[in-house]
């Protein structure tokens, strides 16, 4: 049976649900990145196998295909590739910018903190002794400080995205199959990118590309194909059952005595749940969440255009800026905890303030985009696909 090429991602208006959930994912990533944050117990990673990273990567793949897929159809492979690479470059610059902030924080701690109890831990600052090597390795994306692993992953995913997109536009199934094949080979041969000073990338690009490409596949018509399945009560039931299973396993992490109720063979089958290589259990958990979400939140959900959802949506629409700000804010929040106060109330206030700042910044970026589009100036007005910049 020959596949009909799904050349046209339908010229429909942007699915606000994507922005909503990407915005929420950005908030959750911010909360999770603050070490020992009391508020982070609300985030989804505590109640199942997957976390906000899966949501972020999937939706990023979806929007990248939505935006650059159109561009590739309208302007051809070369131009679309150039735009994808430009985007990768922007993300690279953002990553280096964050690294500079990280260096400043490290330098401050190195010069201000001393405690004989933590002599060993302070050794983490030793890399400051040869900054030439460290900074070079950081620019090569090999040296990545804690919690700065997502952007390098994103860069790599974009670097090889345009051939994948080209394939997906011609034969969606083949594109998805190629991605799944790479994922399988990764498990078979234990492929990963090397990190500095030792070890591998925390988010293995060979593994995480699967979710990115799956997102892209959904954007290019896969979602419609799946619609019949997604809306079947049987699948929704299965997804719900899996979420309950994951939830009960997660509870044994907090109440180890419950662990006695987990049969040994189950434990042996599921652990360790590998985040680096995007464990199948994590994928299933994400898919289950997605199925349940789509079931409860239809595309034309009335609240999507309401004020309640606006803060998350505006963050989701400006994800790169908001993501970087979130990483910076989580550094800053940790700084507040160590320098000012570490009470639970402080955690709550700092967490809420951080999200408020993210929303404010996102609104500002949106506003800039509007005035730049309207205003007379040296730049020609952006085309409709230029809207992509903030979203892929």
């Amino acid at each position, binding site marked *: 049976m020959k596949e009909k090429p799904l050349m046209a991602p339908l010229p429909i208006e942007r699915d606000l649900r994507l922005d909503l959930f990407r915005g929420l994912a950005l908030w959750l990533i911010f909360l999770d990145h603050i*070490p*020992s944050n*009391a508020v982070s*117990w609300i985030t989804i990673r*505590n109640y199942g196998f997957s976390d906000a990273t899966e949501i972020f990567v999937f939706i990023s793949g979806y929007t990248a295909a939505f935006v650059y897929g159109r561009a590739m159809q309208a302007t051809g492979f070369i131009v679309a590739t150039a735009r994808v690479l430009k985007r990768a470059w922007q993300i690279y610059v953002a990553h280096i910018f964050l690294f500079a902030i990280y260096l400043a*924080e*490290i330098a401050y*701690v190195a010069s*201000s*903190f*001393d*405690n*004989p*109890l*933590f*002599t*060993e*831990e*302070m*050794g*983490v*600052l030793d890399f400051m002794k040869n900054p030439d090597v460290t900074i070079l390795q950081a620019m090569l994306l090999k040296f990545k*400080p*804690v*919690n700065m692993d997502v952007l390098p992953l994103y860069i790599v995913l974009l670097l090889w995205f345009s051939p994948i997109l080209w394939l997906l536009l011609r034969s969606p199934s083949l594109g998805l199959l190629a991605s799944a094949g790479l994922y399988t080979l990764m498990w078979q041969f234990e492929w990963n990118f090397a*990190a500095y*000073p*030792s*070890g*591998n990338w*925390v988010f293995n690009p060979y593994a995480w590309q699967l979710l990115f490409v799956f997102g892209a596949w959904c954007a290019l018509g896969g979602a419609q194909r799946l619609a019949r399945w997604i809306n079947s009560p049987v699948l929704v039931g299965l997804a719900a059952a899996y979420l309950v299973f994951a939830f009960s396993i997660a509870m044994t*992490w*907090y*109440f*180890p*005595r419950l*662990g*006695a109720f987990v049969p040994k063979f189950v*434990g*042996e089958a599921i*652990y*360790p749940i*590998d*985040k*680096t290589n995007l464990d199948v259990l994590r994928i299933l958990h994400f898919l289950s969440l997605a199925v349940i979400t789509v079931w409860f939140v239809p595309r034309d959900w009335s609240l999507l255009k309401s004020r309640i959802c606006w803060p998350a949506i505006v963050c989701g629409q400006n994800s790169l800026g908001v993501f970087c700000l979130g990483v910076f804010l*989580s*550094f800053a929040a*940790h700084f507040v*905890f*160590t320098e000012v106060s*570490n009470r*639970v109330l402080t955690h709550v206030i700092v967490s809420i303030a951080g999200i408020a700042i993210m929303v404010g910044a996102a609104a500002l970026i949106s506003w800039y985009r509007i005035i730049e589009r309207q205003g007379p100036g040296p730049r020609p007005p952006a085309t409709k696909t230029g809207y992509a910049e903030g979203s892929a």
Partner: protein
Amino acid sequence: MTGRLASLLAVLVLATQVQAGPALADHAADCRLGELQIDRNFPLPQVARALAAKQLSILVIGAGSSLLPGTSGAANAYPARLQHALAEKLPGVEVKLATDVKAKHSAAEMVKSLAPALSSAKPALVIWQTGTVDAMQGIDQDQFSQALDKGINIARSAGADVVFINPQYSPRTESMIALGTYAENMRWVAVQKEVLLFDRFSIMKLWSDLGTFDFYSATKKLDIAESVHDCIGRLLAGLVIEAAKPSEPQAEGGR
């Protein structure tokens, strides 16, 4: 991850009392709250046998966080405090303790020197502190858990029980050392190999939340560090003794 909830509860329950005034002179009572974070889910048969024979020999292997600086560092670090506490609680039992502790040693490096250390100390119990250095160096997760596995096997075949000690809670460096997956790996290996895990991270986190100790303060003084090590030594002693009791019920025993 485990115990975050427990510590939150403990904070909620105890916050009012603790804030009444900082305990300065004697940390012993506050220290004991750390027991909330200790699970005695596996027995220590070799230790039980050694206790019956009135002779307990222990080998502590670890890295920098098993050491204290200074001339009396060795006497005040938790291995010596553990020996002291055990001798106190076990009258009539001869408690010997050897250490193989080197700063900046990863789990795999410790495993390398494990066999000779075992053959010279002949311990009934190996206490193994690790994880921090591996996290700092970003050692591959598989290699880390394989090293743990191997170490347990070597210790067991030499006739010793094993207790893990996970990394310290170090709030100042928390945003720079990703302990998370290493701590989870340790927990997982411990469960799989039925090894006791002394959850030093959660214990210290609880102390920090309760205000028992201030881990944020910059100081060159050793007093807090010494108290912490003393507390850890005592809690370890309690764990070893309780877990070695015959047919200790798995659910919470009386304290």
